[in-house]
């Protein structure tokens, strides 16, 4: 903002005064200020640069703020002045953009680029090199010789097989478009248009003083082609100068120029013959690629399938009777013991979704030791826990028969537990009947339990750690009993 007013009381007063002046509260004083403001500013300017210097930063700041706020406003104000410059710049930029975009686009997505990539892969040459070589392929399809002043067509030549709409009208429109571009973009300063992009065609233009030579080119012609056009045009102008200025509207006067124009119909034939062969290879490559993908897919599926069938086949409680692998859906049928593990985790871990494999099971009783163990576990446990080793009154010597029965049941439960991978502990608890003193009974109960535990310790896989003395049994039982504990 403007230089700050001097500080202090004095400054504040002046500030208030100024505010009063600039933003008067009543209409009358507003009126007064309005009247004096313009002449005051005017005379101040005439006196010297003071006010100017004061206002300069204010205006600058305001301008900047306003630009920041609405850039469009300023652009609008400036456009007439810089318009020509911008237009010229844009026309050039558009031209360059069109060139590069067209080239890039062609390379990125066209079938031709696929061909190039294929060729690069086949020959081992870098892709860029191939592109460069191929980009130079071009074909001049048409040449127009146009009378410059009238836009009338003097002569038109094409390569064989090129379909042309009315060349007279193309010639006229080309001239009109050229005028338009020149006026609106080149600023009308005599700078002439050299190339026009029409779809994937490029029109190269060369201007003489009486005629224009326009070549319609497919692909990208080398820069030297410009020289060919220039020399041809110069020759024609030299030869027919008298007929072209003034031009009487009869194109037959330049009919002798035909061969010269035909010589401009250049190009590399490679463009037509090559792709047919290469395209065939592309299809072959695509087919091979497709087959490879399919085969890979199939092989991958085969491994998944083998994993699934192998796993279910070796899973206890399963007997597979039918396995069928289709392209998408697979099915497995068989027998399954209700105590077997569910099949879903096997399907999932093989990498299939549940809906990809249909499973049909009929129940059966499996004799697989692991399933048998599952089936037998509860009964055997119950059996052991119902077993009692008997004793004579006041004796800690176990009854032979009942001890043997207990030992055999312990072996059964151990075997079963081993099948199921369980960690077991067997609690051995002794008891005594109501006769005799309590102290004696206490001792007797422990002695009985210990005696049984010792007798069992040698049995099968039972180790001493797996036997623990349990709590004393309720009074009135001259026995030793067992409790099976499963440990995690």
């Amino acid at each position, binding site marked *: 903002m403007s230089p700050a007013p001097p500080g202090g009381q004095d400054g504040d007063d002046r500030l208030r005064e100024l505010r009063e002046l600039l933003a008067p509260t009543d209409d009358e004083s507003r009126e007064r200020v309005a009247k004096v403001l313009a002449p005051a500013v005017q005379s101040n300017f005439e006196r010297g640069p003071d006010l100017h210097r004061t206002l300069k930063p204010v205006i600058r700041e305001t301008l900047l703020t306003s630009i920041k706020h609405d850039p469009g406003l300023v652009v609008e104000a400036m456009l007439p002045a810089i318009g020509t410059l911008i237009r010229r710049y844009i026309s050039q930029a558009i031209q360059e953009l069109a060139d590069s975009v067209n080239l890039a686009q062609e390379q990125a997505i066209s079938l031709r680029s696929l061909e190039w990539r294929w060729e690069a892969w086949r020959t081992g040459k870098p892709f860029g090199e191939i592109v460069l070589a191929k980009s130079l392929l071009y074909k001049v399809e048409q040449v127009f010789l146009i009378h410059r002043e009238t*836009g009338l067509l003097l002569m038109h030549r094409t390569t064989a097989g090129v379909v042309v709409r009315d060349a007279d*009208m193309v010639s006229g*429109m080309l001239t009109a478009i050229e005028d*338009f571009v020149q006026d609106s973009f080149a600023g009308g300063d005599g700078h002439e248009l050299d190339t026009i992009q029409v779809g994937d065609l490029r029109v190269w233009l060369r201007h003489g003083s009486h005629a224009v030579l326009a070549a319609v080119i497919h692909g990208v012609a080398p820069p030297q082609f410009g020289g060919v056009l220039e020399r041809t045009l110069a020759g024609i102008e030299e030869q027919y100068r008298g007929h072209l200025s003034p031009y009487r509207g009869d194109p037959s006067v330049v009919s002798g120029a035909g061969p010269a124009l035909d010589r401009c119909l250049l190009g590399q034939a490679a463009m037509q013959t090559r792709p047919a062969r290469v395209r065939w290879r592309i299809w072959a490559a695509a087919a091979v690629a497709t087959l490879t993908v399919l085969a890979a897919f199939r092989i991958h599926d085969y491994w998944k399938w083998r994993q699934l069938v192998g796993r279910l086949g070796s899973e206890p409680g399963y007997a597979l009777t039918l396995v069928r692998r289709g392209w998408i859906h697979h099915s497995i049928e068989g027998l399954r013991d209700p105590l077997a593990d569910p099949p879903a985790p096997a399907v999932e871990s093989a990498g299939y979704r549940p809906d990809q494999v249909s499973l049909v099971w009929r129940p059966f009783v499996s004799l697989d030791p692991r399933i048998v163990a599952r089936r037998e576990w509860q009964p055997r446990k119950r059996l052991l826990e119902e077993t009692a080793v008997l004793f004579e009154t006041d004796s800690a010597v176990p009854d032979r028969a009942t001890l043997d029965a207990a030992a055999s049941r312990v072996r059964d439960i151990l075997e079963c537990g081993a099948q199921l991978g369980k960690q077991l502990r067997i609690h051995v608890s002794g008891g005594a009947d109501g006769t005799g003193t309590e102290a004696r009974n206490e001792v007797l109960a422990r002695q009985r339990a210990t005696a049984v535990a010792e007798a069992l310790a040698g049995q099968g896989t039972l180790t001493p750690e797996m036997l623990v003395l349990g709590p004393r049994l309720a009074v009135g039982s001259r026995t030793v009993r067992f409790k099976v504990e499963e440990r995690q």
Partner: protein
Amino acid sequence: MIQRKVCLLGAYAAGKTSLIRRFVDSMFDDRYLTTVGVRVDKKVLSTPHGEMTLMIWDLAGEDDSTPVDLRRCRGSSGLVLVADGCRAHTLDTAVRLGSDASKVAGEVPRILMINKADLKDEWEVTAGRIDGLRRTGWTLYLTSAKSGENVEEAFASLAASMGPANV
């Protein structure tokens, strides 16, 4: 075959484009007119001097904001000036454009079409005005792009007057 460039000039909405459409089968889209400001059409006519190809340039304009770009008349062998009979001032515009174009194209043959003859009831251009123009040497046609009245005749007469002698 002889070829001639002809320019169509006149006030905005006088009916230039409609007259062309009546006269030839266009190859280019109307869009060219709005973007490029010119549309070129072609018509082959037979004249007393033999067949002649007219390349007809329809120039966009003229209203207050976009004047006709008369540089486009360069090399013209003939001019077609079009006015709207319903708007008298378009006749002044047509006459003025004709004399301005002479500076670029030279004193080439020209005809004046007063168009929308099918709306004669609403015409502002009077019979007296038309007679006056005829007396001062104008070749003048009352045309209608809508009915086609006098359109072929007008172009034919222009073509005839642009014979080999009048390049």
